[in-house]
């Protein structure tokens, strides 16, 4: 059952990733941040590896269907980093808890049964 839910989320995340590809095209030189997700009973948790970046150089933009992480790395070599985290229907980007520890940005998006799949 869980793998069925995960497969459905994977598909939806893939669809939203394609839908919001324009964000990536806006910054063609950006390096894509490595991100992984886990579905939990309480919501969807994204983990983004933001290595060699100071916290003040990270911006997390919350949009209804997608969360965009932008970061600037100045060391060891300068780079603009970009992460696109799709948020499928059933989760609410208005209810997000973000933590940055070590080199990982953790974004927890709570479930919202009222928000259906678009």
């Amino acid at each position: 059952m869980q793998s069925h839910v995960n497969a459905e989320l994977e598909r939806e995340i893939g669809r939203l990733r394609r839908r919001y590809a324009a964000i990536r095209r806006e910054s063609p030189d950006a390096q894509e941040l490595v991100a992984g997700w886990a579905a939990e009973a309480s919501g969807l948790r994204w983990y983004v590896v933001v290595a060699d970046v100071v916290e003040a150089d990270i911006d997390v933009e919350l949009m209804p269907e997608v969360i965009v992480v932008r970061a600037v790395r100045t060391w060891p070599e300068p780079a603009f980093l970009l992460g696109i985290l799709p948020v499928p229907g059933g989760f609410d980007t208005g209810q997000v808890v973000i933590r940055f520890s070590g080199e990982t940005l953790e974004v927890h998006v709570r479930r919202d049964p009222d928000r259906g799949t678009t």
Partner: protein
Amino acid sequence: MKDYYEILGVRSSATPAEIKKAYRIRALRYHPDRNPKDPTAEARFKELAGAYGVLSDAGKRHEYDEARENRGAPGRGRPGATPFEADGDGMSVEDILRRFGGVFGGDFGEGTHRNRGAARAGRDSEVEMAVDFKTAAIGGKVSVSLPGAVTCGTCDGRGAAAGDARCAECRGTGRVTAQPREDGQFFTVTRPCPHCLGTGVDPARACPVCRGAGTVERKRTLKIGVPEGSEDGALLRLAGLGEAGAAGGPPGDLMVHLRVAPDPVFRREGRDIHAEVEVPMAVAALGGKTPVLTLHGRVNLVIPPGTSSGLKLKLRGRGILGGDHIARVMVTVPAKLTPRQQALMAELQAAGD
């Protein structure tokens, strides 16, 4: 008196840009986030902030330069002149980030979003399109209907009924940025402006049709050009044909997934087309010509004498993108013979024996 030029590692003749660059490099190196286990990093970070606070301000720098010069030349100092000290040591890390934050994360926060305005690129659209075999093979146009955001015709995409209608809350960016410092976090979080709901347009002066979004949801019909030789499952990416962007943002792309229907007559193998051709028994035996339907129209196929079923004859350049049309001969025998035909067949049989 501290030597701020030495702290930042620049010459006393350094330009403001050189000073800024030197500060950024060093401050990031000693940023407390990056050095959680080094208790001296914070002190160094504050020292750098103090030096930058003085040298980045033309007035303070001039004053500091004078004091520095007088210190180095005894007797030249003004009576009562006090050693110049910056306030960096007394500032908290939070104060420093608030004051010089632009130097660290120059691209982020409110400043960036203000520069970007409310303009947003349109989303990419995806559609599955059924295409018949022949159109996919030789190319053509196919109409497809799809829903999505299009530019609002009433306000021309501006989102405002008339004049300057920027939302006062977000200054027209549609976004609000905050740092969750109360939780000890220094990254910035950007959300849609709660007042204008992310449109950047004052709701009181928003276009009554699109309510400030600049786009409306509509079903639109497009004629898509299918390139010659398209295969089933191919993906066409059409730049700028996706959903309309908001507030002057560029449109997204349209991705068309082609579903090519099989054909009852033609079969594709790479660039070649395979089909069967029926050849009357007499033509097969004696040789001649028989009409063949290809993707590019009807042609006469030359049948050599003594042709049997299964023989493959090639029509060069009649396939896809210069490929060939391969006709597989199927010799047909009349189901019913007239008395004359029966007699001739019997004669043929006898001659063959």
